[in-house]
């Protein structure tokens, strides 16, 4: 705990300028609060509304909503290009330690709204570290953010509805998408009562796009190998049984120059964990922050909205962001809240959350994927730790949890700090001990006191002590 001498400059700091953070910032500002919106990107929008300068939003969803939020940022101080590497509690609230280029600075606030989103969840398979193999979100970001296609002949694989917009986007931008290989069997999901609420419209639209571009959509199949020397040249696609084990003899090879793979999302929890917020295991097996009806985390003054408290899509993020922003704003300015509006938001949140839960239930990750791994398949690409080294640390060295695996053989100690390999290492360890992945497994791979790299010069150069 440090003391900041003066009254914090902001009533509310919002971390992350995606749907949740934008909605939160605008809602908080509407209550008269002094609001800062912080994001490492140069433009607001997050992953969902990632765009280029001058983008007219033609291929974007709900662009009107984005424009309205962006225009409302007039009342918000937008600290673009600021990366928060550490958050700490102070007597009056919080201090966020940021870097902007090489320069370090601090943002002091009374309340904090964390809306840091999620990134692609990775399952390793032989060849997944070859150049040309992208995460589904990475491929989409390249396209949306830079107008660049990851390849000309692209295979899309993984699980979950997010594969559809990625494949549709790539096809619309002119790539030849050789297929969407969905490991699960989501047919049941489309018959699920909550999907009947009408939320399926988007998916149907994407499927239509795929059909127009003659992109096959195959269930119970997956990319189980990527081949190539310097870059990916082909993908091994196999049929899976209900437990995701490869159906013997079913593997065929598709020539391609890019593969985009995603098995759901991992929420980004560094900041809530640094502040001591409690977590839980969500339906999709992800570690998420616990929040209450007002989007409050378990640490006073910390609100969490969007994927950081559960993966549920942009619509849910907007609602959660608005709830967080209104409550944080009302608390710091002591204005009265509009109960009817709040109730409306809460009802919407409940409906969207049950939709998200049904979606997660329809797209679980099945344990058969562990069988796709070869002995020499890399699990941690930063430290080049293979599956057999991970297994050796468990069998020979007695690792009982993924943190112990990390301590003995280093998966998760490299540049990405376990963001990529934490999930897979947890699965490998749990499987060996005959159990499922637990919250503690993921927690042991998620504590990152330095949320984003900061140069030692920037850290030291600050002359305030």
């Amino acid at each position, binding site marked *: 705990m440090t003391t900041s001498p003066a009254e914090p400059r902001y009533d509310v700091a919002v971390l992350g300028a995606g749907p949740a953070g934008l909605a939160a910032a605008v809602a908080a500002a509407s209550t008269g609060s002094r609001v800062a919106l912080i994001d490492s990107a140069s433009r607001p929008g997050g992953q969902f509304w990632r765009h280029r300068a001058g983008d007219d939003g033609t291929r974007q969803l709900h662009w009107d909503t984005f424009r309205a939020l962006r225009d409302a940022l007039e009342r918000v101080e937008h600290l673009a290009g600021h990366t928060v590497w550490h958050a700490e509690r102070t007597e009056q609230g919080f201090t966020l330690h940021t870097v902007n280029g090489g320069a370090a600075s601090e943002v002091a606030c009374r309340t904090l709204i964390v809306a840091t989103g999620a990134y692609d969840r990775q399952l390793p398979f032989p060849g997944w570290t070859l150049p040309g193999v992208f995460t589904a979100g990475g491929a989409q970001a390249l396209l949306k953010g830079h107008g660049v296609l990851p390849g000309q002949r692209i295979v899309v694989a993984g699980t979950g509805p997010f594969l559809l917009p990625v494949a549709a986007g790539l096809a619309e931008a002119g790539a030849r998408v050789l297929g969407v290989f969905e490991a699960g069997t989501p047919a049941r999901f489309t018959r699920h009562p909550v999907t009947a609420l009408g939320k399926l419209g988007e998916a149907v639209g994407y499927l239509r796009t795929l059909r127009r571009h003659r992109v096959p959509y195959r269930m119970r199949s997956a990319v189980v190998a990527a081949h190539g020397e310097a870059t990916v040249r082909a993908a091994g696609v196999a049929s899976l049984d209900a437990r995701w084990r490869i159906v013997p003899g079913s593997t065929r090879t598709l020539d391609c120059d890019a593969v985009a793979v995603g098995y759901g999302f991992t929420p980004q929890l560094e900041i809530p964990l640094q502040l001591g917020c409690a977590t839980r295991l969500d339906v999709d097996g992800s570690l998420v922050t616990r929040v209450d009806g007002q989007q409050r985390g378990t640490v006073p003054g910390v609100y969490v909205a969007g994927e950081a408290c559960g993966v549920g899509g942009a619509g849910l993020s907007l609602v959660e962001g608005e709830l967080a922003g209104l409550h944080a704003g009302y608390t710091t300015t002591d204005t009265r809240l509009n109960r009817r509006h709040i109730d409306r938001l809460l009802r919407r949140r409940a409906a969207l959350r049950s939709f998200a839960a049904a979606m997660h239930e329809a797209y679980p990750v099945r344990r058969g994927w562990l069988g796709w791994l070869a002995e020499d398949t890399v699990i941690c690409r930063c430290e080049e730790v293979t599956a057999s080294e991970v297994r050796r640390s468990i069998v020979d060295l007695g690792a009982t*949890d993924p943190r112990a695996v990390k*301590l003995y053989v*280093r998966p998760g100690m490299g540049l990405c700090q376990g963001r990529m390999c934490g999930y897979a290492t947890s699965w490998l360890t749990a499987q060996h001990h005959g159990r499922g992945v637990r919250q503690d497994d993921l927690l042991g791979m998620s504590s990152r006191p330095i949320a984003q790299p900061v140069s030692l010069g920037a850290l030291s150069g600050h002359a305030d002590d």
Partner: protein
Amino acid sequence: MEVARTTADVLVVGAGMVGAACAYYCSAAGLRVTVLDRAAIAGGTTSACEGNILVSDKEPGAELELALLSNRLWAALGAELGAASVELHHKGGVVVAKSPEAAGGLATLTAEQRRHGIEAVDVAPDRLFELEPNLAPDITAGAHYPQDMQVQPMLATAELLRRARRHGASVHTGTTVVEFLRGSGGEITGVRTDAPDVPTISAGWVINAAGSWGGSLAELAAAPIPVLPRKGFVLVTEPLPPVIHHKVYTAEYVANVASDDAALQTSVVVESTRAGTVLIGASRERVGFDRSVSIPVLRMLARQAIGVFPFLSDVALLRSYLGFRPYCPDHLPVIGADHRAPGLVHACGHEGAGIGLAAGTGHLIAQLLTDREPDLDLAPFHPARFQEVTT
């Protein structure tokens, strides 16, 4: 239902570096060993240190003797287990000084250390830059300690326990000692745990290798010893090509290690690991078991590291970690049988040197428990020294 009763000659409580060394040497000496830890192997302070095996930071006295014994034993372990299996690296230490006072102090210390059997080589500035080409230009004096080594401490702990298992030892993780069992004469006969698969374990000897929690464990046996936590942070950079070849630290470090001051002290220690990351340690603070991250401490470490290696200014900090050194008021570990609780043997309180001193500690404990004459006089480490002070 009858509860399965596990028996052992030696029950080691704590699967950190010290407990693993005790288990290794005891099982190699033919004793039946069981090891317990409430968490995972090497998950305690052993997972939060820098893994140095040092003689360079020792001043003449009992700890220096233990460090020299340990240094020889570690070299032998490296030869026996294969240096790669524990990432044992004979990298040597380099101590540097900027101010004339620090340089003078360093020269006095090296002379003293040489008299006590440490290889301490005074190094002229030009030769210093041959050893470490990237040092700051304003460094004026230095010393080279070829005996200093480094080991990957978590790996070494797991590897020693693997070897102990081969000698018949069993290891139970996720198992907390909740009570000591006593015989009719009040002697310790084993422990009760919170784990259903090993509810009780009886043993001829129970070794307290609970590190910073050794005080609480001793308390449970009604044989208190003053082991307290001294917090320390380490910074970890992005991986780099080999740019730092030794363990490099400033002459102020030795003074800080031996200090009684509770306030924050930082005297930087910089070195590379096998994976190319640079470790920057370490602060010393007495703030109890407070796990909060202190930015001013990280900042000070960064500043001091840049003072020794200016190129670090542009290098990215990837992460930091922190731990609690187990220290005793006189800065010596507690090694030996506790006569207040016959059957209880302490092996804890190694402060900032538990990795290095683990080898000697395990070796001496095995000698003690097999009725051999210990290679070192254990009197300075005896638990009774605290009672003598209080009475």
